[in-house]
């Protein structure tokens, strides 16, 4: 299955991936409203780590044997037929067990909604928002 891979050599640490991820996962899908008018604020599911000059974007790896799915106490995290690790927000109770077991530290705590937020590979798009909008082509969406 296709996943998002980061090329840290050309990541410029601008964090536009976070901006567009947040927008894509907002109610309005409008960049200005998503950032200024929606409360609680939508969460970006991609996280940029930086220690200049190194930086890279990081999100759920949709592992073949996901530790989070095996640890989830409510069954909110499952792996679907396409191989994606899917998070059912309605079932999530914010127990943070997945936060504790994911070796990449990918699930992020949404303290306002009391749930986690995790990359879903943008099911409504052909290419995930972060990949499409990166200004330096530092994210690729491909099968490896």
């Amino acid at each position, binding site marked *: 299955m296709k*996943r998002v*891979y*980061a*090329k*840290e050599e050309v990541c410029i640490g601008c964090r536009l991936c976070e901006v567009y991820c947040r927008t894509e996962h907002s109610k309005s899908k409008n960049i200005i409203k998503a950032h200024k008018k929606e409360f609680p604020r939508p969460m970006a599911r991609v996280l940029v*780590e*930086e*220690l200049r000059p*190194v*930086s*890279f974007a*990081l999100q759920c*790896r949709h592992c073949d044997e996901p*530790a989070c799915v*095996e*640890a989830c*106490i*409510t*069954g909110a995290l499952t792996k679907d037929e396409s191989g994606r690790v899917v998070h059912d927000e*309605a*079932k999530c*109770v*914010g*127990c*943070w*067990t*997945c*936060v*504790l*077991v*994911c*070796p*990449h*530290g*990918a*699930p*992020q*705590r949404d303290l306002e909604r009391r749930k986690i937020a995790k990359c879903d590979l943008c099911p409504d798009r052909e290419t995930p928002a972060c990949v499409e909008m990166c200004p330096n082509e530092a994210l690729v969406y491909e099968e*490896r």
Partner: protein
Amino acid sequence: MSYVIIGNSVAAVGAIEAIRKVDKEIRITVISDEPYSVYSRPLISEYLAGQVKEDMMGYRDPSFYEKNGVTAMLGKRVTAIDPAKKSVKLDNGEEIAYAKLLIATGGTPFVPPMKGLELGRVMTFIKMDDAKHIEEMLPELKHVVVIGAGLIGLKAAESLHHRGVKVTVVELANRVMAAVLDTDAGAIVQGALEKAGVNIITEDTVEEILGDNMGLVNGVKLKSGEALDCDAVIVAIGVIPNAGFAKESGVEVNRGIIVDDHMRTNLPDIYAAGDVTEGPDYLNGGKRVMPIWPNAYIQGKIAGFNMAGVDREFEGGLAVNSIELFGVPVVTAGLSNTESDDLEVLSSVEGDTYRKIVLRGSMVVGAVMVGNIDRAGLITGLIRDRIDVSNMRDRLLANDFGYIDFPVELRKERLGVS
């Protein structure tokens, strides 16, 4: 020909999902003494607190059994196993034959002998019916005493508090969550509980439960001599493997059912998985009872694969706990509370946040985080994958520790970009 699973919680689901990856045909029967379709045990606290409704408690959809070709015999208890005949006997006299058997009966509350246990409103808190039972009593409860400040006891206390009941927790050790937290971390958690209005008594225990002339609880007497008025008692000292029924069958039982790294018991075609087992310990070698939700799923998965003929090895159980009490998140992983000459402890306390890393040589073997638990999994990953952290030591305590602190090649390998 069918595979029979005794137990209907997370280990059973792990086994069923593994078997079905490999074998869509073999019949699978699940026998459970509870009447419910598989549900998330830990959510009984959220249920009691009024935060989760019963129809949202399911760990899998009710259609799970049908979708996976599983016959669910609910509300039936297994009383004995006959390894020679390869069948199990139910409490209604029925006998169910098995080609392979998985014992996944989980744990049962440990209740030490004391006076007053037979009184009405003395309860334990590990299954759905316990939560419903307590919920029914809520109108009559003004003050409840919880014995034991472990994870179950504290979650019960928090849930009752949210329903407007005053709670006192009595704990034998000198701190709460003594099994996994040290005094520094324990103090922060206790502070949060007390700030919310929960009463905590440490270094004491309940010696006797007192009752009124209606046979209902009306107080407790502590070892220290203090007496407390209360309307109910929840015994939450601990959970032990629910293996009693299997002893006579010849299955080897120590503290729990002994299993090897393929989840096999000493008897052919009999496996065990989950809280009922005493299985391989990842960090210390040897065997241990490790009643942890993710371990139960994984053990179930391994058992299922092996039952279906696929050779899979269990790496060993890793103790991980995540709990949030009154807005304070606490996570622990591995050897979080051990002191030993071969272990090195790094810790930092900043106000209400606490972070501890336990090292054995150049590897992390344990961690505790209170308050700020973001990306804790990175540390768990270091423990699980036995990563040499010599180059990262001075960053392990940092709240923003991340992949950026890893050597480039290691990071790329883990992210799949090398």
